[in-house]
């Protein structure tokens, strides 16, 4: 089932709303859904994977983003998306839990409705019809447009499961005739109606499908299928003319053309038009392309041709054909045994995998493509079985998981090496960093800073202008002090007295200057002290960080190493488990195929018996015919 659907251009960035819609879309929605912008890029990345059918990458990436809380804005949508993708992997249990939790935690109505819908679907798939109906009843009117059709289909399936075919037909009436899913549903319903005995309605429904416009190969194949079904139903109902009309609609080169030709022949035969019956039957056994000798219809045609000759009175030809048929059946018997042997040797699964080498888990390829093996046409019936397809899908998923685990085992080995290198690099670098840090004597610097701060406080308190003077001023103060000492020693000469007076005046001017400059200098000094404080704090922080790193880094490395070891242990435990279950599943898949081929063998045995019996009767007839001749002689 394709989940994709068309999205209007206006809503190209509308992923959040679309995803959940997309999950179950069997058809292409005509209208763009309600716009809603991606609010977190990691959610968008999940969508990017999802839209490419890379569900495994999408799921694991989404769960990683959920771990890092990177998709909180899309929490519920992300869960709906995850649940849907898990469902696609057949993980009903986990998907069911996700949807139940969404309902339990009171998600928004649109999310809740989708959760109920998926729960209904899961329950239906698991055979809990009543519970599925209950879940369906809880859905309100908030399903996205594209899911509405899915809802109708599920509703009809539930009704069919209850045997209420009339109800199912009524529900399906609401679906567009051109809808792909609707067409399938109508086909299934038509079949169900016929089987329930309501032939007129069943045939009417199948006839609708059989005449529906078929723009694609998929639709054409379904139309063929409906017409073949109608043809054989008419034959059963002893309406050979109607049967021929239905069977004539089937394409001559389709998958069902052999069955249609066979049926057409039987319809003619029923109308006593044996010559006309020979036309399609002869075509079937002609060996032309598409008329494989091992095909069930071709095999049946072999005895049908012989039967027609007998009916036309051509007993000799009839006998010859029966004997040919017996020979062909014997050869087919041998071929079936060879096929069974090849399947048991694993050639079927290997061949199928070779034809479909996918990179992801899931179901994205066409299983109808036959593998390269002898008598591959025997497998047509096998591959058509839903049970076989599901089993094969699981086997293929298990193979993917095995490769995934092996890949991680290798990667973790690399991470381990990387971690060892980091540890080594850390150990090499640490002494150098310690040396560098040791050169910075933070304690000494702090002591000096404290002394400076005390001096500054004292200078401010004492208004000691000289304490904050710069080098020029300090030189001037010293010169004046020196001059004053010299003048004191110089005696009492009037010139000395004049000089002393000048020095006194200069000293006064300097004191006045210093007093003027004091506030600025004090502010600058305090600013410088603050800067020193910051530098010291920074150095202390670096020192603390280094000390912390010395404690933490080894612990961090150790924590990583432990996590790697734990995960390696989990991988090691899972690898043989996956291998064992893969083998078990392989056995189951092969046995399904073998069982089908065994059924084919049983049919062949029955054919051989019929043919031999017919041959015996033809001989009896010949013998009886000779007796009167002999008597007359």
């Amino acid at each position, binding site marked *: 089932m394709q*989940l*994709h659907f068309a*999205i209007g251009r206006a809503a*190209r*960035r509308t*992923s959040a709303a*679309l995803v959940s819609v997309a999950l179950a879309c069997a058809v292409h929605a005509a209208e763009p859904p309600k716009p809603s912008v991606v609010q977190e*890029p990691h*959610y968008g990345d999940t*969508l990017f994977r*999802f*839209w*490419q059918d890379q569900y495994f990458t999408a799921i*694991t990436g989404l769960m990683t983003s959920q771990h890092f809380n990177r998709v909180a804005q899309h929490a519920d949508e992300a869960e709906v998306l995850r649940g849907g993708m898990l469902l*696609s992997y*057949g993980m*009903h*249990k986990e998907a069911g839990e996700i949807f139940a939790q969404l309902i339990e935690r009171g998600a928004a109505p649109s999310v809740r409705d989708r959760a109920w819908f*998926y729960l209904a*679907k899961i329950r239906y*798939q*698991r055979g*809990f019809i009543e519970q599925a109906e209950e879940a369906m009843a809880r859905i309100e009117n908030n399903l996205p447009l594209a899911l509405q059709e899915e809802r109708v289909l599920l509703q009809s*399936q539930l009704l*069919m499961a209850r045997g209420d075919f009339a109800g199912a037909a009524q529900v399906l009436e609401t679906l567009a005739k051109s809808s792909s899913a609707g067409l*399938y549903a109508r086909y*299934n319903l038509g079949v169900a109606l016929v*089987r329930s005995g309501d032939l007129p309605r069943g045939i009417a429904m199948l006839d609708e499908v059989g005449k529906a416009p078929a723009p694609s190969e*998929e639709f054409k194949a379904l139309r063929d*299928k409906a017409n073949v079904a109608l043809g054989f*139903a008419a*034959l059963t109902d*002893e309406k050979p003319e109607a049967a021929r009309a239905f069977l004539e609609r089937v394409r001559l080169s389709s998958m069902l053309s052999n*069955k249609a030709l066979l049926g057409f022949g039987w319809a003619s*035969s*029923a109308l006593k038009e044996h010559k006309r019956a020979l036309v399609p039957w002869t075509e079937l056994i002609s060996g032309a392309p598409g008329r494989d000798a091992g095909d*069930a219809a071709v095999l*049946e045609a072999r005895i049908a041709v012989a039967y027609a000759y007998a*009916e036309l009175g051509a007993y000799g030809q009839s006998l010859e054909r029966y004997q040919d048929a017996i020979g062909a059946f014997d050869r087919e018997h041998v071929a079936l045994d060879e096929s069974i042997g090849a399947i048991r040797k694993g050639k079927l699964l290997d061949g199928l995998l070779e034809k479909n080498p996918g990179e992801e888990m*899931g179901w*994205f390829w066409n299983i*109808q493509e036959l593998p390269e093996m002898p008598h591959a046409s025997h497998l047509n019936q096998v591959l058509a*079985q*839903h049970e076989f397809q599901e089993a094969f*899908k*699981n086997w293929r998923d298990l193979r993917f998981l095995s490769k*995934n*685990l092996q890949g*991680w085992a290798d990667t973790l080995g690399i*991470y381990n090496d990387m971690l060892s290198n980091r540890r080594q690099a850390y150990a090499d670098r640490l002494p150098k960093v310690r040396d560098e840090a040791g050169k910075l004597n933070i304690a000494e610097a702090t002591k000096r800073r404290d002394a400076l701060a005390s001096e500054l406080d004292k200078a401010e308190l004492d208004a000691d202008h000289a304490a904050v003077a710069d080098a020029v001023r300090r030189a001037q103060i010293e010169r004046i002090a020196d001059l004053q000492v010299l003048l004191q020693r110089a005696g009492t000469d009037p010139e000395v007295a004049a000089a002393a007076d000048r020095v006194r005046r200069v000293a006064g001017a300097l004191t006045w200057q210093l007093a003027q400059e004091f506030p600025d200098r004090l502010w600058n000094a305090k600013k410088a002290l603050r800067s020193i404080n910051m530098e010291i704090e920074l150095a202390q922080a670096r020192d603390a960080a280094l000390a912390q790193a010395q404690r933490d880094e080894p612990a961090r490395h150790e924590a*990583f190493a432990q*996590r790697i070891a734990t995960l390696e242990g989990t*991988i090691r435990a*899972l690898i043989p488990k996956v291998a064992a279950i893969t083998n*078990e*599943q392989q056995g*189951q898949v092969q046995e399904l195929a073998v069982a089908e081929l065994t059924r084919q063998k049983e*049919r062949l045995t029955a*054919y051989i018996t*019929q043919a031999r019996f017919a041959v015996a009767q033809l001989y009896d007839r010949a013998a009886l015919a000779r007796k009167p001749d002999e008597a007359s002689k």
Partner: protein
Amino acid sequence: MSARIASLIASAIVLLHAAAWAADKPAATPAAPQPAVASPVSTTPAAAAPAASTPALGTATAAVSPAAAPGSLDSRIQDLKGDVIRLNRDLLVLEEELLFPSNTQVALFVSMDVGKMFELDSVQIKLDDKVVTNYLYTPMEVQALHRGGVQRVYLGNLKAGTHEIVAFFTGGGPHFRDYKRGATVKFDKGTDPKYIELRIKDSTGKLQPEFDVKIWQ
């Protein structure tokens, strides 16, 4: 004789046609498996043997399968798939924490809003004048972008400080002309992870594509 042969053949035909004709819709993508079109159970009628035949048509109603019993192979496979998926989650978390710690992590994304004016072929991204990615798009990837996907095109590490991104987008522009345009942005990297989205938009006013950069906070 012929009547007897006919009846014998008819019964043989019934056997031959025991194969099913269920209208199984090809299972293309499986996000929500279609139960309706599942296991075929039918017999096809033999044309010349009306007496022996029953309507032989594939049906959908047999799709309902019984719940997998605990311990059954199906149930064990489900559990195993769950285990491996959870393990992958743990491994991806480890990988990210080990290789791209949050304090240095930078992730670059590409998105496309509408994208009518531009058909994306490739993108080249330079981070601080060093090419970190050259990406060539497949049609499926372009379609995924059109549908609202956002591609994480690069995941790496950067030191704290100011950095520059230059992105070149190559593809087809309006009127089927080759188109190459760039977008540049400078950003500050702190100690939190940095997520940067390179966006391709349509400018309906100019009838040209537009390229801009969004820094996620």
